[in-house]
């Protein structure tokens, strides 16, 4: 990402300049530079957040699936929780990559909405459901002890 930062920024800028209506560009440098700068900052932030979450969610998957494998005694819930945590955790970071890729073509907000519905909500939702499910199982187990 660092190595290709300049090329990526140049590509995103050119793609945005080719779609002035999408980004609300008005053709006045003093006005447009702020719009382009914000979009480029968010484009870069999306790539950084993808990197950050791709690393972080790996650890989350490891930690939570370890807990599930150790303490969820019933096989069916255990398998479901592990599957949800793995798929959700692995897919969620891709939302940031998708968002970054969509910014030059669809703008900040529309790109975010698409990424939310295609990736963040389903995959993040799977992770959240699995985590609460696992928490419930752990609380039940604590109460029984």
């Amino acid at each position, binding site marked *: 990402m660092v190595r290709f930062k300049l090329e990526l920024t140049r590509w995103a800028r050119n793609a945005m300049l080719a779609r002035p209506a999408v980004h*609300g560009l*008005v053709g*006045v440098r*003093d*006005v447009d*530079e*702020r*719009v382009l*700068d*914000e979009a480029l*900052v*968010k484009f870069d*932030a*999306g790539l*950084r*957040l993808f990197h950050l979450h791709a690393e*972080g*969610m790996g*650890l*989350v998957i490891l*930690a*939570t699936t*370890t*807990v599930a494998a*150790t*303490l969820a005694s019933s096989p069916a819930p255990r398998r479901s929780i592990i599957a949800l945590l793995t798929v959700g*955790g692995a897919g*969620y970071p891709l939302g*940031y990559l998708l*968002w970054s890729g969509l910014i030059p073509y669809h703008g900040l907000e529309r790109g*975010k909405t698409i990424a939310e519905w295609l990736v*963040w909500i389903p995959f*993040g939702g799977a*992770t*959240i459901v699995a*985590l609460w499910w*696992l*928490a419930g199982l*752990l*609380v039940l*187990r*604590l109460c029984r*002890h």
Partner: protein
Amino acid sequence: MSPLAALGLFLVAATPALAHHVGAYVPKDNAITANFKQIKFSVQAGKFDVAHRLFETGALRTDMSARAASLPPRLEAGLRDALQSRDGGEVERRLMVFFAALARDLALEAERRLADLTLSRDARTAIGQRFLEAIWRYYNLVDFAVAQRDDKTSVAVRLAFDEAEGYVKSSPIPNPDKLREPLRRIAQVLSALIDSSLPARRSS
């Protein structure tokens, strides 16, 4: 692993998983405003030679030259003379005139764009909002200098700006048609400020 330790581990792991954010944007200076601040702080520190070098090599002078036709005569030459003669007050006054002219030109352009009724209401509101941000970014740099010399102008610009912002932000329904009037007022007030600050006009 005990269930209690597992619950603790789960809570630690759940925190980043639930934090879904997309970052925050903090507007940066552009080349002109950054160069203005460099020159201003150099002058305030009494480093006129540094300020002169920053002016000659910076984006502000380039932009000033490019817009010479719409600026008061000898604005650039006078600023250079003031830097060479170490006249801080005159440097500040000429920079104030330059940024007032930038803000005025943006207000006039915004007013012209908002008159285009072929654009949708939302599009005109978005355009108005973006122009207002750009106007304020320039005017805000010199508002203190304006207020020191002519507090009525400063108040008039601020009031017009607040009114304009109200039409694109605070109102329940944005009203880009009403936005044109405060923009016109901003342009008029700033034109008067420029004329009174540097009375000699370019002969055409």
